[in-house]
């Protein structure tokens, strides 16, 4: 199963009642509160993503403490969910604006 396919059910829920990454950031009670907030919608997709994030410590050179795995995974999952439209966006030859200038 591809990551996108695994996330599909959550995308539909978000269309009805959007939950974006920001819903996680200011959850009362920190990590525990966030987990409660997202228990139904986002964490259902969690096991694969949690495992992926644990394994990414090889790349980040920093193991994520266990207490932070669940809320961090939830946040990453939400962002992946609502990135579907962005990923599908056809941008042609447009170049990145990494040093952005409005002029």
């Amino acid at each position, binding site marked *: 199963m591809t990551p996108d396919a695994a996330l599909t059910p959550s995308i539909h829920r978000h269309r009805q009642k959007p939950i974006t990454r920001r819903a996680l950031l200011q959850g*009362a009670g*920190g990590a525990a509160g966030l987990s409660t907030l997202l228990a139904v919608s986002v964490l259902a997709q969690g096991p694969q993503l949690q495992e992926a994030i644990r394994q990414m410590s090889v790349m980040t050179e920093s193991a994520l403490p266990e207490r932070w795995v669940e809320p961090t995974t939830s946040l990453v999952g939400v962002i992946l969910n609502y990135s579907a439209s962005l990923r599908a966006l056809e941008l042609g030859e447009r170049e990145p604006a990494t040093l952005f200038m409005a002029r």
Partner: protein
Amino acid sequence: MDDKFALLPLSQLAPLIRKKDLSPVELLEAILTRIERFDSQLNSYITVLADSARAEARQAEKEILNGHYRGPLHGIPVSIKDLFATRGARTTCGSKVLADWVPDYDATAVARWREAGAVIVGKTNMHEFAYGVTNNNPHYGPVRNPWDLERVPGGSSGGSGAAVAASLCTASLGSDTGGSIRIPSAVCGVVGIKPTYGRVSRYGAIPLAWSIDHVGPLAKSVEDAALLLAALAGPDPKDTTGSDRPVPDYTQGLSGEVGGVRLGIPEQYFFEHVDPEILTAVQQAIRSLEQLGASAQPVSLPHLENCAAMEAHITLAEATSYHEPHMRTRIDDYGDGVRIDLEAGRYLLATDYVKSQRARALLLEVFGRAFEQVDVIVSPTLPAFPPLIGELYVQSGDLREHVIDAFLRFSIPYNLTGLPAISVPCGFSSSGLPIGLQIAGRAFDEPTVLRVAHAYEAHTEWHLRKPSLGN
């Protein structure tokens, strides 16, 4: 000292100071007295710099008496969001990580206000590292909304918004990565302008996300905002993204006239899921501008539904990159909300970050096409009223959503495009909460944005209302 001077806007104080009818020392004392009386309720300041401010006010008074008047900011008491480096004054960025940091330099924006003669009263409270919109700061306590002490003031420049609204300073310096000047301005009933990216130097402003961070003033009126922006704008060799375009006279077009100006009313996005009272106030504001001679027409702005994802990828990636050194050594000193954001920033894909940066070019094309038809684009600043402190959700018309989703929704497109946008008061709810009107323009066309905002303000009295703080 008559408290009434503390309540006046910069544009009315400056002539009094220039004519020596008002002493900067007396004005500062009136402000410090108000801080002493009211800031225990609001918590808008992290650090009050009473001693250095008194010295600066005495110096200003001396210069003016000696015939050396520097201009409209001379002797004006201002506050600085605690994200800007201030030489010799603690700069916490609302964090425990930087709780004891005393810079040995000024941010360029701070230096420019100092050069203009402003008196720095103190450093205002903010959302930790500017990473949020409620100002529920876990280290320095929440800032309270002067219009309703049980509610948030917006953020991340929430201390600045509250302090200006409550006349605990005459103006304040803020930063805006996703709306952090315009959001507290709308929530607190003051004026805030996010200028074009590159117009004001970011040097010395602790970054949240370099490529969408902006610096600008929060003020009591549009004319004040124009005067304050004029002192900030211009190239800075220390900021490589700064523009070397000439800085126009921002006050020149403030005639109260908008005849012939074309207002763009977005067909998508900006009027969806909005509180009915906000919608009514903004629609009335558009009618008012039409009665003043402006014309309104619909404009199409597709693709804005991608803004939230773009903002997430850009902000998380850039913020985590900036904070990595502190994350290695001080990770437990971050508040929970900011920590989760920073941790998550390690696990997003570089391709999504780059795609977000590429999509900014698309958004600029979208707005570019709209600005071929109109001169400014008008919308609500926010779709909902501020929640009670500690509450997470707000009602945006038919949509119940998280406060940060709601508050960023209409402001973030102008961070991603870098276009200038102002929030100006345009009404109050039935429960007495302010409503903000957002007016955005072409790149570097701050003069038109200010002109339209000023004309609206000149024919309304919303900006003259003051919160009642008792005593």
